[in-house]
């Protein structure tokens, strides 16, 4: 492309415009969770932890919007991956789960959010403590993929709660990241059932668990907590009681509007 003298420079694509994205890949993560890769035209780029709004419009004009965290790392560019859990009785997630196929087009707006965001370039050596429940792992996965992609070796731990072993989203990828020996460790807790020989935690996240998993990272760790409201409250309160400064604890709650 050439610019004529005096013409305006190309403007940066706006993050708040609705764009028509194409579904390029759908992958099963667990029996109730799928990942969708969207090719988004003019994607402005995103930071790990941000989300998009997704809008569905019926032929009569009725439309619904939902927010979904971005699972892909910024380095993947305009191939934006969302991971969606099917919520029974929901308006949007059953449609995504059962109706959408590769080649379909979806309206998205984003990236959105500047609060629940981690950029490896600003704090490349700082310890990172991530706490997730269920599909709350999605924005945390974007952070871990971002960290791995940049070859960081800062101490990092993910404490992840799920009901059953088969409900752990990204389990094989998380275990591979943990086996890479770059300072990342994965700690799982299963709250409803455990497989035979399970040696990990088997209860809901509580003060003692947070203290034990955080301990090797120390009280200067940067913390991100994402999950259902109850889990977020417990974990954030525990971190505050352990003496972590409030400005190092970032939280994101998800709930029934995310269905």
């Amino acid at each position, binding site marked *: 492309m050439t610019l004529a003298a005096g013409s305006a420079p190309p403007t940066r694509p706006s*993050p*708040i415009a609705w764009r028509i994205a194409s579904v390029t890949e759908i992958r099963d993560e667990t029996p109730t969770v799928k990942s969708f890769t969207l090719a988004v035209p003019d994607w402005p780029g995103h930071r790990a932890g941000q989300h998009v709004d997704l809008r569905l419009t019926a032929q009569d004009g009725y439309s619904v919007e939902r927010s979904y965290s971005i699972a892909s790392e910024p380095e993947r560019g305009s191939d934006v991956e969302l991971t969606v859990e099917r919520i029974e009785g929901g308006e949007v997630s059953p449609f995504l789960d059962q109706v959408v196929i590769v080649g379909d087009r979806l309206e998205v707006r984003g990236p959105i*959010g*500047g609060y629940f965001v981690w950029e490896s370039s600003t704090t490349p050596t700082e310890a990172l403590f991530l706490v997730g429940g269920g599909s709350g792992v999605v924005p945390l996965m974007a952070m871990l993929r971002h960290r791995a992609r940049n070859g960081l070796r800062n101490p990092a731990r993910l404490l992840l709660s799920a009901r059953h072993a088969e409900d752990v989203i990204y389990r094989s990828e998380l275990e591979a990241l943990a086996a890479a020996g770059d300072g990342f460790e994965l700690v799982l807790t299963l709250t409803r059932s455990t497989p035979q020989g399970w040696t990990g935690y088997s209860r809901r996240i509580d003060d003692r668990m947070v203290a034990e998993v955080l301990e090797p990272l120390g009280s200067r760790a940067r913390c991100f907590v994402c999950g259902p409201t109850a889990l977020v409250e417990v974990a954030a309160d525990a971190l505050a009681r352990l003496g972590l400064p409030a400005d190092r604890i970032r939280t994101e709650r998800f709930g029934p509007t995310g269905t």
Partner: protein
Amino acid sequence: MATRVDDEIEDAVLDGNAVGGLLASSFGADMTAIPGRCAHCNTVSMIGQLRAYTRAPGTVLRCPVCAEVVVRIVETPTSVLVDASGAAWLRMDRR
């Protein structure tokens, strides 16, 4: 004693991140990381930290410390109405 209805309401509480897209489209910039002071208890929180009650005709954002209303947002077909009378101030960086 907490009732089942109370529990359901508590489960439905989100945070200011949930209305990030709506606010960004209204103000033209991300609002979740801007700080504001609660007019009731003087706590400074970022918008993303406020408690969001979204299962209503509008959205109500409450202070995480004193639970008073900081911001109300109502969408109509032609406009977005933001009542920030519960905020003493909001601070936006120059871009």
